C-alpha cells in the first residue's frame, strides 16, 4: 500500500481543467467570463476526531464541466458532496458555489442556494405513497411553497404541465398517475432525475446515481442523465464505482484516497488500468 503510483498520476495529470468534449471547450471558455461554479478550498471533515475523512481537500470546477469523483468505499465521496450543500456541516474550509460562499450562508440563503443545485441520490428517495407526478412536482419546492407544490392535485396548471414536460424528458410521461412505489429501480431513478430537472438547477450533483440499478438499466439511465446535463450545459459532479462511467461521462476524473485528492486528470488522458490503480 503505497501512495506512490497515485502521486505519480497527479504529476502526470496534464491540463486538469481542460474539458474533453468540443462542446465543453466552449463552455470552459465561457467559464472564464462566468467564473467557477464550484470552488472547494481546504475542506476538512471528520466524524470522530482521530480519523479525518476529508483533510484539506481543494477542487475547482468550471462552468459546464463534468467531474467524475472516484475512490474506494468510505473515502468520503458522499461526504464531500453532502458537505457542499451542508447536508453535513463541514469542519472547516471554504466552499463557493455559483459565486456564493456556502459556509457563510444563513438558513434562508442556504435554502435558496440548495434550490439552484440538483442532487441525485443513489437511492431515488421518492415519496412511495404519492404519484409519480406529485414526486416530480416536488422539484418546484425549490421555487414555491404551500399546498400547490405538495400534491399534484393541488398544483396550478403551469406547474403540472412543467412536471409533465420533465417526465417526458426522462421518457415516463405514461407513468404520471402511477404510485411511485409501483416503479422499477430504473424508472424510479428516472423520476428522481425528472424531479431534479423540475428544480431547474444550475449545477448538478449525483451520488452514485445508478449504483442500485442492473447493468443495462444503469447504462440507460446514466446515458439519459448525462445527455440531459449536456444539453443544458450544466456543471456536473458525480460519484461512481464504474471506471467505465467515470471515463465516459466525466470530462475530468478526481480520485479521493486517504482523505485527499490522489488523482485529478482529464478523462481523455486516462485509461481504465491507470484509474484502477487508485483502488490498490
Amino acid at each position: 500500500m503505497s501512495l506512490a503510483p497515485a502521486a505519480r498520476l497527479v504529476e502526470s495529470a496534464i491540463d486538469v481543467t481542460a474539458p474533453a468534449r468540443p462542446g465543453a471547450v466552449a463552455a470552459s471558455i465561457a467559464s472564464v467570463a462566468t467564473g467557477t461554479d464550484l470552488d472547494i478550498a481546504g475542506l476538512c471533515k471528520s466524524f470522530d476526531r482521530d480519523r479525518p475523512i476529508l483533510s484539506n481537500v481543494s477542487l475547482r470546477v468550471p462552468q459546464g464541466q463534468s467531474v467524475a469523483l472516484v475512490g474506494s468505499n468510505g473515502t468520503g465521496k458522499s461526504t464531500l458532496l453532502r458537505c457542499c450543500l451542508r447536508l453535513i456541516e463541514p469542519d472547516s474550509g471554504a466552499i463557493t458555489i455559483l459565486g456564493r460562499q456556502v459556509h457563510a450562508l444563513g438558513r434562508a440563503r442556504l435554502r435558496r442556494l440548495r434550490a439552484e443545485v440538483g442532487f441525485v441520490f443513489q437511492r431515488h428517495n421518492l415519496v412511495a405513497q404519492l404519484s409519480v407526478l406529485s414526486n416530480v412536482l416536488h422539484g418546484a419546492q425549490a421555487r414555491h411553497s404551500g399546498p400547490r407544490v405538495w400534491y399534484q392535485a393541488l398544483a396550478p396548471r403551469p406547474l403540472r404541465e412543467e412536471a409533465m414536460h420533465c417526465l417526458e424528458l426522462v421518457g415516463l410521461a405514461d407513468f404520471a398517475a402511477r404510485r411511485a412505489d409501483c416503479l422499477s429501480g430504473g424508472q424510479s431513478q428516472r423520476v428522481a432525475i425528472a424531479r431534479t430537472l423540475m428544480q431547474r438547477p444550475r449545477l448538478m450533483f449525483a451520488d452514485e446515481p445508478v449504483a442500485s440499478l442492473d447493468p443495462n438499466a444503469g447504462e440507460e439511465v446514466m446515458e439519459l442523465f448525462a445527455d440531459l446535463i449536456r444539453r443544458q450545459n450544466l456543471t456536473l459532479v458525480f460519484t461512481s464505482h464504474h471506471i467505465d462511467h467515470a471515463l465516459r461521462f466525466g470530462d475530468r476524473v478526481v480520485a479521493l484516497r486517504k482523505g485527499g485528492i490522489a488523482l485529478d486528470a482529464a478523462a481523455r488522458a486516462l485509461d481504465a488500468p491507470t484509474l484502477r490503480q487508485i483502488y490498490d
Partner: protein
Amino acid sequence: MTDMIVQPLHAPPPRLVRPSAGIFALYVGVGAFFLFSLYGSNLSPAKLIDGLPNMLRLVGEMFPPSLERLQSVGGAMLETFQMAFAGTVIGVILSVPLAILAARSLTPHISLYYAARWLIALFRTVPDLVWALFFVVTVGLGPFAGMLTLVVDAIGFCGRFFAEAMEEADKGPQEALSALGAGRSEIVFSAVLPSAMPSMINSALFTLEKATRASVVLGLVGAGGIGIELKVAMDLFQYDQAATIIIGVFLLVLIVERVSSILRKLILK
C-alpha cells in the same frame, strides 16, 4: 484418530447465571408485594363460590332478553356510536398538528416539543372516566361531555402514535427535499405525512374501536350513550332489559372491529 471428542480451549459459560443480590431482592420484593396485593383486594374464594348461585340466577333472569324497549335502546346505541365516531374524527384531526410539534425531528422548537409531549401524556394518563366527570361538570350531562372525553382520549393515543410514525417516516425523501431547498412545511406535508399515513390510519382505526368500547361506560357518569340505560336496568333489577343492552353493545363493538379490520386491509393492502 479414534478420539473424536473435541476439547475446546475455553470452557463454556455456566448454564444459569446466579442473579446479583439486587436482582434477587427485587424478585423477593415483587413476590411479597403480590401477596400483599391479594390481601388488599380482599381475596376470598369462599365468597366467589357462595356467589355462584346469585350469578346463575342473574343469568337466568336475563333470558330471554326483553325486546320491550328496543327502540329507545336502539336510539341510545346510535347515540353511543355517534359520540365515539365524532369524538374520534375530531381527536384524530387535532392530533396531527400536535403530533408534528411532538415529533423530535419536526418540532419548530424544543419547548413546543416538551409542551406537546406533556399535553399528550396528560390526556393519555388521566383515565377517561375522570375526564368524563370533568366534562360533565363543565358542559353538563349528556353526549357532548362524552364526545369531549373521547376527543381527549383520541388525542392521548393518536398524538403519541402519530408522532412516532412521523419520527420513523422514511428519511430519504425528506433529505432529498431539503437538498433541493424545500421549507419545513413542504417537507412535512409532502414527505413526512404521506410516509406516515398508513401507520396513522391504522392508529386512527384502533382509536375508533377503543372509543366505541369506552363510549359504553361513559354513560355511567352521565356523559351520554347507552351506559346510563344499562345502569338503570341493573338498578331496577330489569335483567332481561340489561341483557338486550349487553347484547347490543357486544354487537356494536364487534361490528366496529370487523369493519375497521376490513378497512385496514383495504387501505393498507
